[in-house]
């Protein structure tokens, strides 16, 4: 498949002798691209609606904006990268249906930018099912364990650190400053359980147990009261809360905790979508005349987009300024206000940048059989975040670094000193 254009792609790399031919080929490519016949099509299933839509939309925007830039520059080996996206609303069943559609109907090259643990966890069993197609899931927006261990790890490439690493880091930091009574607020599904498990394991290493736990149901909107959960945890008298949830529910939990006069440090993990969380707290805080943003800690799996020392941050900001793209109209919730910059869209940008790098290193990016090798055996990738990214046959997670941030002056900044919460 794709032989003639593959050859013309190779031709593009040859001397200037063939420039006219290249132009003709490019014109043909444009013609064909209308039919999507030879694009590099990546398939996305993410939350574009519901309480977690902010994650799906921002991740998509970070990636598609970068792809836009690459496409304008001539694509990868002369091939456009296009994204086929479906909305799963953060619901596992929809995610499964979308995935089957992407594989069988749309015949995508690979799966990309999936959002959420419960969704991805349920999609994973499909991948061995289609193993003869050499189908891989690239850089899902989740830190859950299942796609990082057997039997699914070989079908998935992760970029970000795991929730286990995020929660481990958070718990260790709290223990260091004397906050030993840890309670967990979590979403009652595979995602929440993953974070819960990380907290539990880390505490166990120190011979400790969590003092309390409270749960909420996936899809809980910000408008709902979570006072019950606040009361359950408050009654146990914890020193710190690790919150493993989505931004609407976590913001509601923080709001209700602060409203009941409880100022305990609350730490959220990367999946929460820090800016979406912050915006909800700022808006409702302004309405209530209260400051809901004190004592908030968010762990991140990408560096701060405020750190312009980093080449990746500068490029990200440039891309988001010049090539900012929105999801197609049918996926876009008109009530959603896109963020200029965010940890999520920065992660989407990095995902896209890494994918383009991988594809560029392939002789024929349409050759799926060579995809695994291209990722596992081509050494280090430099994304411009100071930390090099590399994969191997036994290493399907690119980064292990966890970054910590807190709200200062209405935005997230890296934490320089944990001792301010020392007890």
């Amino acid at each position, binding site marked *: 498949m794709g032989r003639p254009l593959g050859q013309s792609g190779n031709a593009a790399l040859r001397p200037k002798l063939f420039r006219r031919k290249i132009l003709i080929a490019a014109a043909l490519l444009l013609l064909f691209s209308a039919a999507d016949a030879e694009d590099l099509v990546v398939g996305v299933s993410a939350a574009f609606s519901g309480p977690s839509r902010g994650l799906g939309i921002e991740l998509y925007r970070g990636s598609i904006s970068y792809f836009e830039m690459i496409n304008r520059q001539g694509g990868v080996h002369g091939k456009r990268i296009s994204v086929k996206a479906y909305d799963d609303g953060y619901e*596992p069943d929809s995610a499964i249906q979308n995935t089957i559609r992407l594989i069988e109907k749309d015949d995508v090259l690979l799966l990309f930018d999936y959002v959420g*643990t*419960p969704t991805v*966890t*349920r999609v994973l069993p499909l991948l061995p099912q289609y193993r003869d197609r050499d189908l891989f899931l690239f850089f899902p927006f989740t830190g*859950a*364990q*299942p796609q990082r*261990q*057997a039997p699914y790890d070989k079908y998935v490439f992760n970029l970000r650190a795991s929730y286990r690493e995020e929660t481990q880091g958070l718990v260790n930091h709290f223990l260091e400053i004397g906050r030993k009574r840890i309670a967990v607020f979590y979403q*009652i*599904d*595979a*995602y*929440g*359980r*993953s974070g*819960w*498990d990380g907290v*539990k394991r880390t505490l166990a290493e120190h011979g400790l147990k969590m003092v*309390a*736990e*409270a*749960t*909420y*149901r996936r899809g809980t909107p910000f408008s709902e009261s*979570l006072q*019950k*959960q606040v009361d*359950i945890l408050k009654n146990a008298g914890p020193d710190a809360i690790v919150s493993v949830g989505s931004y609407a529910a976590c913001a509601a939990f923080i709001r209700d905790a602060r409203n009941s006069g409880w100022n305990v440090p609350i730490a959220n993990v990367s999946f929460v979508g820090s800016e979406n969380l912050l915006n909800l707290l700022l808006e409702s805080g302004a309405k209530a005349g209260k400051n809901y943003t004190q004592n908030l800690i968010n762990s991140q799996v990408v560096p701060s987009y405020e750190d312009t020392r980093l080449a990746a941050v500068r490029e990200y900001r440039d891309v988001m300024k010049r090539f900012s793209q929105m999801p197609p109209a049918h996926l876009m919730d008109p009530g959603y206000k896109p963020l200029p910059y965010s940890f999520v869209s920065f992660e989407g940008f990095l995902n896209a940048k890494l994918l383009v790098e991988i594809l560029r290193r392939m002789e024929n990016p349409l050759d799926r059989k060579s995809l695994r090798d291209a990722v596992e055996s081509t050494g280090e990738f430099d994304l411009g975040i100071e930390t090099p990214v590399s994969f191997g046959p036994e290493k399907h997670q690119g980064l292990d670094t966890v970054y910590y941030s807190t709200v200062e002056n209405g935005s997230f900044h890296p934490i320089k000193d944990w001792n301010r919460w020392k007890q």
Partner: protein
Amino acid sequence: MRISRLFLKTVFSIIFLLAIFALSTMLYFSRQLRIRMIGEFESKGKAIADSIANSGGEVLLSRDASTIQAVVDQYGEIDGVGYVFVVDVDHEIIAHTFVPAVPPETSLIIQEQASTDRRDIRMSGQGDYVDISAPILAGAAGYVHVGMDRGVIQNQVKSAIQDEASLMVVLFLIGILVAYLLARSITRPIQAAARAAEAVAGGDLNVKIDVVSKDETGQLSESVRTMIRNLNSVVGQVQKAGIQVLSMATKISATSKDQEAAVNDFRVFTTEVSATARAISATSSELAQTMMEVSRVASETGELAGTGKSGLHSMETYMHQLVAASQAISSYFAELNEKAEKVNTMVTAITKVADQTNLLSLNASIEAEKAGQYGLGFGVVAEEIRRLADQTAVSSLEIEKTVAEMRSAVSKGVRSTEDFSQSVEKSAERITNLGAQLSLIIEKVETLTPRFESASDSTQSQAEAAQQISESMFHLNEAAQKTAATVDEFRQITEQLHQAVRGLQQEVSRIKVRN
């Protein structure tokens, strides 16, 4: 519109039966449904628990909580499943679906998890559940607990029962509708027939029945229609007959008036007969008085003879004369006796006439009874009676004549007696001595007196007989009067008949007959 009682009875009976049927069916199936559905739910819970336990062995051993949670979530979304939680060998919950927190009651379940695989439990703040547990790797890796939500079970049972109930209600309503239509289709024609019959009872034969049907109610309607048609013709005929009877009654009434007149005429006649008889009676009485007079004179004569004691012995010579004279007298008086005998006969004849008249009066009364169309009969009877009256008149004339003869005979006797007394005067002195002889004569004269008396008696009895005739005539008159009364009564009855017929005609004419 008045509601037919038959209709109400039919409809209410069917509603009652339907209600019993619907209610008992509902109760029975509700019970069955509840038992079966709860059983289904529990076996569903068991299946889920077993399924998680079987798939969870490997995962549990790998000790990845989020993978277990993903499996648990998948089953937790199944309808009726209230919660799912997985316990490891250390009795620690490693995945669950509780919101907002794990209820304390779970520790109870965990403690006794090996002893039973099914128990009812109430989770504080969560509700009532049937907890079903299944061991993972025969308990070596832990246990799976599935809580089937009793609330959901109850709701499902309730909604199933509600569905069933509403179905029954719909069927019930359809049943009522069908019963209503059925009952109406039966009672409407009957009602129409009843209305028609009522109208007929009220005298309106113009009523119409519109119902057309092929079933029995149609037959009923057709029968009532036929009945009204027949009644129409019968009443029409009765009305005509009434007019005829009325005219006949009028005629009878007129006839009875004629009869009454005839009877009145008869009464006049009998009155006349009676008067005549009374006259006869009076005459006979006078005759009797005369006879008495004669007797008295005879007595005086005897006394006069007695006074002529001086010429008694001279009287011997005249004794023969006297004897002859007395013989003549005795013959005269024998004659008189005969006449009296004749009077007797006549009296008998008069008695006969009286008898016949009596008989006639009887006939007359019989005729009077038949009076209706035989008014003329009375004329004939009247004729007969008139004839009898004539005979009676003739007889009375003869009596008169006889009495006259008797009078002359007596006169002769008187003259002879005068001659005899002259002889006696002549021989007065002579017979003075003949006192004894004269006494003998006196004795003989005295024997004459009873004879006169008997004659007088006969005359008297004649008078009595005439009186009897008169009485008979009076009775006859009375009878005729009664006859007249009877005829009057008959006339009155005829009048009543007339009135009755008129009334009947009025009644019948009230009924409106189809033209």
